[in-house]
């Protein structure tokens, strides 16, 4: 059985979201024109999360993708909380004071973030009070620490990442009288999530990455062609520097057991992550928390399981690597995506497909007969399909959707094969994860005119 093209489209478009930065006086003064985002689940429920928000008390826009593992709790928490931590880290002392005073006196709070959310992107109501209290503690500390220096974005990002991970860990250790919340904070801490977050303010683009999601800049060359520039490093076994780092942080005796089968301690793919306290806490702490925790936690084989060769925790950190990039007019867009995309597509293809989509040049990659043995009949069939495809390309109103269509449906000629796309999307839940991963994509489009005017 096959899904018809309209069915395929309704699946692909279920989670798509677009945001256009509003214009003032007919002019767009922001370096960001807007963004398109989308996600396609393979896990049920999906373990990826995405966030986007505009900072209201400072300038700039925040966008991030979060790839959860061992459940979606941690990715969900990070997607709700991380941007607040970053925004707070960026706030000047006076603003922090103002906010604290407002809270203290019960006045209305200055809004910190304007979220750009798809209806499916939910925030946990139950935990909001808990999360808020943790955040308030953080800014109170920042007020106390007032260094008087202007906030460096890089430092703010690093601090926010570390602080949130620390709070996640603490909340789990402390627990909560509310049993639902108590279970929630434990699930958050015992599951994990990567994070790849971009902060765009004028021509300053910072990307903070923890884990194996990736940020990529789409650059249009003078001849009109597209190339890709990486703005993050994957934190996994393929990254020699990461392997080195992990080995440096632990005694030589553990060298052999640290990375096995390209996984941390033979278990975890990303080498940096939020949550995952099983790779951070001491064995004693883990046992204590699990034993005193709710029954659900106790019954869970995974949480009770202690990683082998677990001698000198922590093995895992949430500290991001931050890359700063000064945007140039030729930098047309930024793609943030979880590894579900990068496993299936080369970044060069991503740059081209998105670039051509955004510039409206729907040139598909030209077919070259080259060394292939192609008959007239085969070519005819291929061209007929491509013509059908072109019409589907125009159906996509969203660059991220367009990219997902390619990621899932591309054939060996680099064109979307409807049959393949239909098969991939109609896989039963239990099989889907074997053929593909959750894919979450945000495509941020830059305003070259504004950037060029800087």
């Amino acid at each position, binding site marked *: 059985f096959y899904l018809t093209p309209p069915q395929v489209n309704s699946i692909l478009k279920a989670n798509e979201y677009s945001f256009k930065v509003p214009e003032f006086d007919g002019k767009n003064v922001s370096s960001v024109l807007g963004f398109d985002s989308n996600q396609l689940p393979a896990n049920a429920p999906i373990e990826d999360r995405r966030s986007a928000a505009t900072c209201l008390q400072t300038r700039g826009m925040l966008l991030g993708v979060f790839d959860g593992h061992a459940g979606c709790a941690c990715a969900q928490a990070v997607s709700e909380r991380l941007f607040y931590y970053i925004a707070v880290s960026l706030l000047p002392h006076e603003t922090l004071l103002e906010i604290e005073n407002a809270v203290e006196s019960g006045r209305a709070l200055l809004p910190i973030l304007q979220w750009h959310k798809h209806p499916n992107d939910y925030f946990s109501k139950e935990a909001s009070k808990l999360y808020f209290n943790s955040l308030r503690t953080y800014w109170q500390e920042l007020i106390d620490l007032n260094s008087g220096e202007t906030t460096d974005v890089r430092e703010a990002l690093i601090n926010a990442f570390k602080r949130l991970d620390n709070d996640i860990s603490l909340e789990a250790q402390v627990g909560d009288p509310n049993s639902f919340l108590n279970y929630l904070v434990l699930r958050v801490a015992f599951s994990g999530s990567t994070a790849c977050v971009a902060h765009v303010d004028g021509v300053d683009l910072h990307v903070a990455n923890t884990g194996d999601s990736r940020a990529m800049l789409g650059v249009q060359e003078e001849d009109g062609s597209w190339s890709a520039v990486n703005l993050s490093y994957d934190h996994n076994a393929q990254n020699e520097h990461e392997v080195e780092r992990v080995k440096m942080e632990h005694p030589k005796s553990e060298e052999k057991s640290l990375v096995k089968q390209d996984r941390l301690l033979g278990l975890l793919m990303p080498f940096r992550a939020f949550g995952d306290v099983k790779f951070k806490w001491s064995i004693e702490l883990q046992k204590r928390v699990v034993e005193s925790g709710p029954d659900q936690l106790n019954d869970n084989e995974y949480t009770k399981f202690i990683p082998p060769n677990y001698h000198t925790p922590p093995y895992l950190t949430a500290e991001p690597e931050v890359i700063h990039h000064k945007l140039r007019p030729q930098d047309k867009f930024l793609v943030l995506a979880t590894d579900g995309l990068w496993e299936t597509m080369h970044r060069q293809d991503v740059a081209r497909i998105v670039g051509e989509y955004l510039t409206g040049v729907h040139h598909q990659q030209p077919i070259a*007969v080259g060394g292939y043995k*192609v*008959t*007239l*009949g085969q*070519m*005819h069939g291929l061209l007929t399909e491509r013509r059908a495809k072109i019409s589907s390309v125009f159906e996509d109103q969203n660059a991220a959707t367009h990219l997902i269509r390619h990621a899932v449906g591309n054939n060996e000629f680099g064109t979307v094969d409807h049959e393949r796309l239909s098969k991939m999307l109609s896989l039963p839940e239990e099989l889907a994860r074997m053929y593909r991963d959750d894919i979450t994509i945000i495509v941020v489009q830059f305003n070259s005119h504004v950037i060029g005017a800087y």
Partner: protein
Amino acid sequence: AAGMFLRLLSDVQWRAAHPKWRRMTSSQRRTSTTAEPPPLSLPAQAQVVICGGGIMGTSVAYHLSKMGWKDIVLLEQGRLAAGTTRFCAGIVSTARPVSIELKMAHYSNKLYQQLEQETGVQTGYMKTGSISLAQTQDRLISLKRIASSLNVMGIPCEIISPKKALQLHPLINIHDLVGAMYVPEDALVSSANVSLALATAASRNGVQIHERTTVSHVTIQKGRVTGVETDRGRIQCEYFVNCAGQWAYELGHSGEEPVHIPLHACEHFYLLTHPLQEPLSSSLPTVIDPDGRIYIRNWQGGILSGGFEKNPKPLFTEGRNQLEIQNLQEDWDHFGPLLSALLRRMPGVEALQIMQLVNCPESFTPDMRCIMGESPTAQGYFVLAGMNSAGISYGGGAGKYLAEWIVNGYPSENVWPLDLKRFGTLQSSRTFLRHRVMEVMPLMYDLKVPRWDFQTGRQLRTSPLYDRLDAQGARWMEKHGFERVKYFVPPGNDLLDLDHSKTFYKPDWFDIVGSEVKCCKEAVSVIDMSSFTKFEISSTGDQALESLQYLFSNDLDVPVGHVVHTGMLNEKGGYENDCSIARLSKRSFFMISPTDQQVHCWAWLKNRLPDDSNLVLEDVTWKYTALNLIGPRAVDVLSELSYAPMTAEHFPSLFCKEMSVGYANGIRVMSITHTGEPGFVLYIPIEYALHVYNEVMNMGQKYGIRNAGYYALRSLRIEKFFAFWGQDLDAFTTPMECGREFQVKLDKGMEFLGQEVLLEQKQNGVYKRFTMFILEDHDTDMDLWPWWGEPIFRNGRYVGKTTSSAYSYTLERHVCLGFVHHFDEKTGEELVVTTDFINQGEYEIDIAGQRFQAKAKLYPFSSLFTQRRRKDEVELSGYQRE
């Protein structure tokens, strides 16, 4: 794959031929067997410099050297035959709708056939024949028309059934065909090798060939070519020939004085396949499927198939850029529809393996005809380019005509349809060209029906009345960039849309034009004739008169205020222009000529008028709006508007006077109408145009005035046997041959151009005679309409072709005009055509293979001249009894 392909098309002969001209040009360079022999130095001067080593350049060099000119240098920026010529599909096809193109292709075919024997260079010539397929009845009609004209030229050609087509080519799917045309002598060649063979022969005849030499610009002084600047130095020359193909436009614009060569390149695609399992025979005919927009030829046991798609891709609009020809992308998606058409036509080739999709830019021109001839602004600057992808078919013939043109001053055939001077600077805008060629390229295979108008590049030149007329239902055609009204669609009357109105039969505007004609006959009509070319020639003394007396055949020394119809003849007595000249004063003349004469006539006069600052030639076309008031009541309208008596006693025919019309003064009124009907043409300074038009229309109301268009004018002039230059008259037709001796003053007391020939013809008779034919058994509603170019048969033998035709609403018959020759029955030699010869024959006109009886007349029906209406009615009934 590209490398292999290039090797295959321009194969080893190239190398074999190469040393030959090296040796010819320099005997010291025998040892130069290395890949890059040091280039020979350029000569400091030469009689002729040809730029471009493709099929055109080498063909011109070949023919010039054949005609005995030796001092010729051919420059090629890259390698010989390495541009469009190399990529050309190599199909020599004679099936061309335009007669001169047909002649060129026919000559090319004969030339290529013997070229290998002549030069020793293998040209790959193979007489395969070609089959043009018709999927519709209309297509079949157009093929039949071509077949008729091929047959009378002695070129074998047959209309065949689909089954016969299948026998000729076993791979064709014939299920959707209604018929086909088979031209057995069409051929295939390797175009690059043909070009190399021509170069080899030329170089043996003394032509110097220099490759890797780029012409930067041509120097022109005092309107004459003086030399050529190249990247390897300067060559002084008398003649320059621009054969730069798709770069011809740019080269024309590179000098200080631009030469406008309106052409623009489009990408052109064809695919090559590997051989079939059982390789296709190399003698298998070429298949042309215009309804599928494709052609298919056998190629190395496989096929070569390309076409002319609906959505062409123009390129190099901004001039040459980094894209080298070789780097052009194959675009399969673009080729998709053509591939579908190919597989539909030949399902059997589905399993054939693709070798390559070749992208080869071709240059196209604004009217789908090639460009040749001399620049109107620079004497000695010749052009041969813009082949509309038929370069190999035209190459031989075009080169021959251009060589004749350079050597003799004129070619041996009428090439006006191809003359560079049919264009002006107005067709030279890149935007115009880009848009127009996008229309022209698909037209290559579109159905060509009578009275077709281009849709792009319109509304460029317009009359000040354009909007007024448009609002009244005007439908427009374009001539030389000028919008002219075809007819006015009355309110509430809808015509078919463009695509559906295409027909070879009675058109949908038949009744509309009929009523316009009726109004011209019975009341009065207004036709905006502003597009006509208008010159003023004046001098301080008698220079103007003297010069004009020499350049024109009629006597212009007439009283002031008289209008003279006269030909502007060449040395051979042929019409270079046919015009009306009004003597405005003793020393100034006002000259009206056809619209497309603007460039040609200007150049002709400029080159022949004495270089005298006291003699002024001015183009005033843009200064005047011309309103033609046609009909018996024109007199009344005009006299009421001007308070002046306009009757024949006061304002005789062929008279010109400046007068006031309405409030406007200084209107030149001439008692001519270009139709033979009574009436006037008003030449109105443009700022008064709207006023005068309004006055005329208001005043005319009570006389039943209405607007009319050119189709009405055409019908009127053809039924009156009025010849039009460019349609009926050309540089090879003398006044004696078209019954216009009365417009020639052989004894005007001074010599004039063409006089000798005319005297000779007067004495010895003419070899062709302009004749009017009235179709007898032709059913206007049911039968195919004549157009022009239909063969004329006298007593069953071919005697000539028609040049124009129209339905006469007065005679209620079709009228064709054309030339009758007298070919000796045995030798085919041309004999003198006498009045008796014309009158004593039984005539038939061949319309797409169907012959209709026709009555020949050498003089118009006097009955049609309304002045003598009463008497004529008798004559007309007499005609009907005949």
